[in-house]
C-alpha cells in the first residue's frame, strides 16, 4: 500500500536511515508507509491518524508498557522486534487478559540499515499476527549517530480481562504450589553467547514466545485456582518469586531437583558463574496456584506446546522473613536471593 508520489523507492536493500527519516517530512512518511505499514498492515494504521480509535466492551482492561534495548539486536531465536511484541503480549497476558492492541515507538540511530529495520519490523508484524494482536499506533524518531545503540523500541499494550478474573501478586496463600512452564535461562544464555566479549558456541536459542494462549488454557483448566502469574524476565525466577513473596507476605520453598534447566544452559551458567534461576527468560511463566487446582493446571500446561516441560517446583510457606528457600540437589538448604548487582546489562 505504498503511497504514490515519492520520487524514489525506499532502498531497503542497501539504504540507511538518515536524520530526515525522523524529521516529519516526506522521507519519514515514506519510511512509515513503505516499511512499517507494510510490516504491520491493519485497518487502524491505514487511516493514518495521529491516534487509533477502537471500540471497547464493558469490563476490565489492563495496560502495560515496556522499553526494549537488547544488545545484540539479532540473537538465536529472535530479534529485538519479535521480543518486543512477545514481551509486551506476555506482560498483558500475565493478568489473565486477552491481549488486543499494541503501540510501538522506534528510536533509530542515524545510519541504521533499512534492511535490518525491515527484518525487525517484519518480525514484529509476524509476532503480532501470531499473538492475535494488532500494532495500531506508532512513532518514529531518528537520533544522530552515536546517540543510540542502533535501535530502541518502546511498546505499550492493552488487553481485556474476563469477568471476575483478578490475578494479583498479593493473593498467594500458604500451601499454594509454584508451577513453571519450562526450562529456565534459555533467553539470557542465548544473548550472552552472542556478546562480543563473552561469545561462546551453544545450540541454545532464546525462548522468546507469546504466552497468551498458554495462559488461556491454564485459566480454563483451573478456574479460580490461579493466584498470580509472572513472566520471569530480568532477574529470572529468583526475582519473580521474591517479589511475589513480599507482596503476599509468604515465603517459598523450592526443590532444586525439580526445576527444569537444559544441560547446555546449566553448562553455560557454570562457565559464566551465573545461576539459571537468575537468568532472564522471554517465553516462560511462573504461576502460583491453589493446591487443589495445581494438578489440573500442570496437566494442561504440559499438553501445550509452549510448556511441555512444565513442572511443579515448590510451595508457598509461612515465613515472617518472606524468604525464598530451596532444598538443593545436594540435600542442603539455601536462600534464593535477588541478585544484588547487575548480572549483565541490556538483556531485554
Amino acid at each position, binding site marked *: 500500500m505504498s503511497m504514490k508520489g515519492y520520487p524514489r523507492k525506499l532502498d531497503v536493500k542497501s539504504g540507511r536511515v538518515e536524520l530526515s527519516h525522523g524529521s516529519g517530512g516526506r522521507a519519514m512518511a515514506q519510511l512509515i508507509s513503505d516499511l512499517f505499514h507494510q510490516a504491520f498492515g491493519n485497518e487502524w494504521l491505514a487511516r493514518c491518524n495521529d491516534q487509533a480509535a477502537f471500540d471497547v466492551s464493558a469490563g476490565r482492561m489492563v495496560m502495560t508498557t515496556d522499553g526494549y534495548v537488547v544488545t545484540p539486536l539479532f540473537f538465536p531465536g529472535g530479534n529485538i522486534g519479535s521480543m518486543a511484541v512477545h514481551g509486551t503480549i506476555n506482560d498483558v497476558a500475565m493478568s489473565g487478559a486477552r491481549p488486543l492492541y499494541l503501540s510501538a515507538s522506534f528510536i533509530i540511530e542515524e545510519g541504521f540499515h533499512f534492511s535490518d529495520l525491515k527484518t525487525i519490523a517484519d518480525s514484529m508484524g509476524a509476532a503480532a499476527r501470531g499473538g492475535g494482536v494488532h500494532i495500531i499506533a506508532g512513532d518514529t524518531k531518528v537520533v544522530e549517530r552515536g546517540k543510540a545503540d542502533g535501535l530502541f523500541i518502546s511498546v505499550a499494550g492493552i488487553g481485556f480481562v474476563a469477568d471476575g478474573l483478578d490475578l494479583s501478586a498479593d493473593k498467594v496463600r500458604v500451601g499454594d504450589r509454584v508451577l513453571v512452564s519450562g526450562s529456565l535461562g534459555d533467553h539470557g544464555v542465548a544473548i550472552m553467547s552472542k556478546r562480543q566479549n563473552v561469545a561462546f558456541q551453544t545450540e541454545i536459542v532464546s525462548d522468546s514466545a507469546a504466552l497468551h494462549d498458554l495462559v488461556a488454557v491454564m485459566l480454563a483448566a483451573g478456574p479460580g485456582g490461579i493466584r498470580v502469574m509472572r513472566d520471569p524476565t530480568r532477574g529470572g525466577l529468583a526475582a519473580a518469586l521474591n517479589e511475589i513473596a513480599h507482596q503476599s507476605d509468604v515465603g517459598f520453598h523450592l526443590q532444586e531437583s525439580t526445576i527444569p534447566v537444559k544441560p547446555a544452559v546449566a553448562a553455560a551458567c557454570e562457565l559464566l558463574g551465573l545461576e539459571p534461576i537468575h537468568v532472564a527468560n522471554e517465553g516462560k511463566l511462573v504461576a502460583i496456584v491453589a493446591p487443589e487446582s495445581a494438578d489440573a493446571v500442570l496437566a494442561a500446561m504440559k499438553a501445550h506446546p509452549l510448556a511441555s516441560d512444565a513442572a511443579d517446583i515448590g510451595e508457598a510457606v509461612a515465613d515472617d522473613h518472606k524468604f525464598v528457600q530451596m*532444598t538443593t540437589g545436594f540435600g*542442603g538448604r*539455601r536462600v534464593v536471593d535477588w541478585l544484588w548487582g547487575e548480572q549483565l546489562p541490556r538483556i531485554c
Partner: protein
Amino acid sequence: MKYSDEFRDKIIAQGLARAIDAEVSSQRAYRFMEFCGGHTHAISRYGLEDLLPANVRMIHGPGCPVCVLPASRIDMAIRLVDRPEVTLCVYGDLMRAPGSQGQSLLRAKALGADIRMVYSTLDAIRLAEQMPGREVVFFAIGFETTTPPTANMIRIAESKRMEGLSVFCNHVLTPSAMHSILENPKIRNTGGVPIDGFIGPAHVSTIIGTQPYEPLAEQFEKPIVVAGFEPLDVLQAILMLVRQVNQHRYEVENQYSRAVTREGNRRAKGEVSQVFELRDQFEWRGLGLVPNSGLKLKRSYAKFDAETRFATRDMPVADNPACECCAILRGAKRPVDCKLFGNICTPETPIGACMVSSEGACAAYWTYGRVRGEQVRQRS
C-alpha cells in the same frame, strides 16, 4: 553435566556427612576457616552447613580478592581513569567495590570515565590494539591463580611492542594473608585465634602447590587441607580436618590431588617470577598492611606499570573505625558483634570486606544467618 555432577552427588554427600558425624567428638567445637570465596560459595550454594553437625562451624575467610581490595586502590584506579587519555579495563565484579566517600568504578563510569568490563587479559590486549593512541590500563587483581595470565599479557605486550598498554597491579599472595590471620598480636593476647584448621585454596594451589602452606601448619600447629571447589570436595576436606584435629596432627593434606601437586605449576610460577616481585607490604581491607603480601612489576617491566607510568601513588584511606572485619575475618567476632552490621553496612551499601562480596562472612550472614534462626540486630 559431565565432570561436575560426579562431585555433586547427593548419596555420596550423605555418606560423607554420616562419616563426619561419626568422627566428631561431642566434647568440643570444631572451627574451620575456608580461605577462598570459591569454597564459601560452594558452602552456601549447596547448603553444606545443613549437612554438618552443630559443633562444626565454618568461618568464611578473606579469599575474595575484590573484598579485600582497600578503598585506596579503588580511589587510585578512579584517579587513573579520570585522566582523559586513559581507558581502564576491569573485571565486572570490581565495578561495585567501594572506594572512599561513596566512590566506585560504576559511579565513575556514570560520570563519564572510560571503563570497559573485560573477561580476560586477552580482551585488554585486543582493546589496546583497536585503540592506538589511547592509554589502555588493565586493572589486574587476584590471588596466585590470576597472576600468570597478567604476567603473560605483559610479555605479549612486550613482544608486540605495544606502547599503549599497562597494568595497574593489585595481585596478592595467599600464604601471607593466612599468616597474617594467625599472627595478629591483639588476638593472640586474648587467647589465640579461634580457628582449628583451614580448608586451603583450590585454584591458587594448582599454581603454587601445597608446599607453601607447610611452614604455616608447622608454626601455628593448624591442619590445612587443600580442597577442590565442588561440594563433595569441601565435605571430604572437613572430614580430613576433623580427623587431624582428633588425632592432634597439623599437617598439610591434599584432597584436591586431581589438580594440585606439592610443587605446583612450575611454568606458571616461572612466568610470574620473571615479571613480578614482592612489595614490602600491601594493604588488605579488613587485615590492614600485610608484609610481603602483594606483587608489583619488576623494574625491567616498569614501562608497563601504570603506577610508574602515571606517577600515581597510594593515598591510604582509614577503614571505618567501628568496622569489625579484622576480627570477623579471623573468626574472633561474629557479624552481629559489629555495630555497623545491618545499620550502615548492608549488601547494598557495604563498608567492610566481609559485606562487599555476596559470599563474604557478613553478607552471607545477612542473608543466610537469619534463616538459621539466629538473632540479627534490627536496623535502628
